[in-house]
């Protein structure tokens, strides 16, 4: 990112070009921006990209699916500021190699998540219905998501999201939550870019926790295959024997 027109802009600069007034304090989702560009960058040249810890994980999910050629990507590790870590309620903020910035420890928990899980389910539902009613179907959450890979999103179709116009209703958010269950790397971009101020990162964190507890799996490691894509391999399951034969 660099300073331009009194704003901070994402930039891609060629080798030797003057980077200008570089800024690293504005959390642009560079992996998403790069994903849009990548198909057009057929020249095979290497691409260096500023990489926070969450971006590292996003890259892992991208590599896993073969969207980027691993060999072309050079990661410049960026340690997030205390403020940013707090804003993301991030527990895992330090990239594998820190090239820029001071590494800071992560924060343990997301206050809202805890508050929600201590509510009765009625209260919790009331909370989310209010939040989702504000949804204006801008698709910022999918458009800016580094691990949303479809050009044509099913949430744009009428098949599973029956509500006309806005707000799109509950299924929109439930289905998206499911789609992200095994790949969300908790970068928080959905929440940052949501005009309605829906605490989407909290929603992601709630599901991520359940997913970890169930399958001991956290997205962002390109060696691990999502449990949703594997067989049981003898994992014990309730009622997995026919009780009568």
């Amino acid at each position, binding site marked *: 990112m660099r300073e331009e027109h009194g704003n901070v802009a994402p930039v891609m600069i060629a080798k030797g070009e003057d980077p200008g007034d570089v800024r690293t304090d504005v959390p642009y989702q560079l992996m998403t921006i790069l994903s849009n560009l990548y198909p057009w960058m057929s020249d095979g040249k290497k691409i260096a990209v500023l990489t926070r810890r969450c971006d590292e994980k996003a890259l892992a999910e991208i590599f896993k699916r073969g969207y980027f050629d691993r060999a072309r990507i050079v990661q410049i590790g960026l340690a997030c500021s205390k403020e940013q870590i707090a804003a993301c309620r991030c527990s895992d903020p330090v990239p594998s190699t820190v090239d820029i910035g001071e590494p800071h420890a992560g924060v343990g928990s997301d206050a809202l998540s805890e508050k*929600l899980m201590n*509510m009765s*389910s*009625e*209260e*919790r*539902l*009331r*909370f*989310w*219905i209010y939040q*989702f*009613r504000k949804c204006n179907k801008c698709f910022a959450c999918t458009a800016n998501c580094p691990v949303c890979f479809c050009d044509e999103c*099913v949430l744009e179709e009428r*098949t*599973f*999201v*029956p*509500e006309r116009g806005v*707000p*799109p*209703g*509950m*299924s929109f*958010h*439930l*289905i998206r*939550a*499911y789609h992200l*269950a095994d790949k969300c790397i908790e970068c928080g971009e959905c929440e940052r870019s949501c005009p309605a101020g829906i605490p989407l990162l909290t*929603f992601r964190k*709630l*599901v991520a926790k*359940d*997913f970890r507890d*169930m*399958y001991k799996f956290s997205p962002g490691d390109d060696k691990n295959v999502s*449990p*949703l*894509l*594997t*067989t*049981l391999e003898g994992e014990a*399951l309730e*009622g*997995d*024997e*026919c*009780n*009568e*034969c």
Partner: protein
Amino acid sequence: MTEFKPTILAFCCNWCSYAGADLAGVSRLQMPTNVHVVRVMCSASVKPEYVMKAISQGIDGVLVLGCHIGDCHYMTGNHRTAKRIPVVQKILKDVGIDEKRVRLDWVSAAEGEKFQKVITEFVDEVAKLGPNPLREVAF
């Protein structure tokens, strides 16, 4: 006031649970009239999206029934079902919808009685939960 009769959607795989449902019928096993069976080839073809959609539109409960693990006509199809549905349940729980509104179970072609048992239990369970809170919510 009339007691609440939940509306329930059941996905049954062609090879085991649908056959089990047929057997229950052939055996004249009586059960509540709330359950509407949709036939699919394998429980693994049940998109979690269907469940989310049904619950979001006010269906009171969704059943996904497949072959017992190991008996799947498609070898490991139901393994995937066994992985997916619990995630759906958790997500529902996270937004404050009782995860008991979605149930995954295994019913073989021979288990007419188990089909009856599952249906009857589930209907009671959901009846206890009361109407799907999303039923009346206009977004």
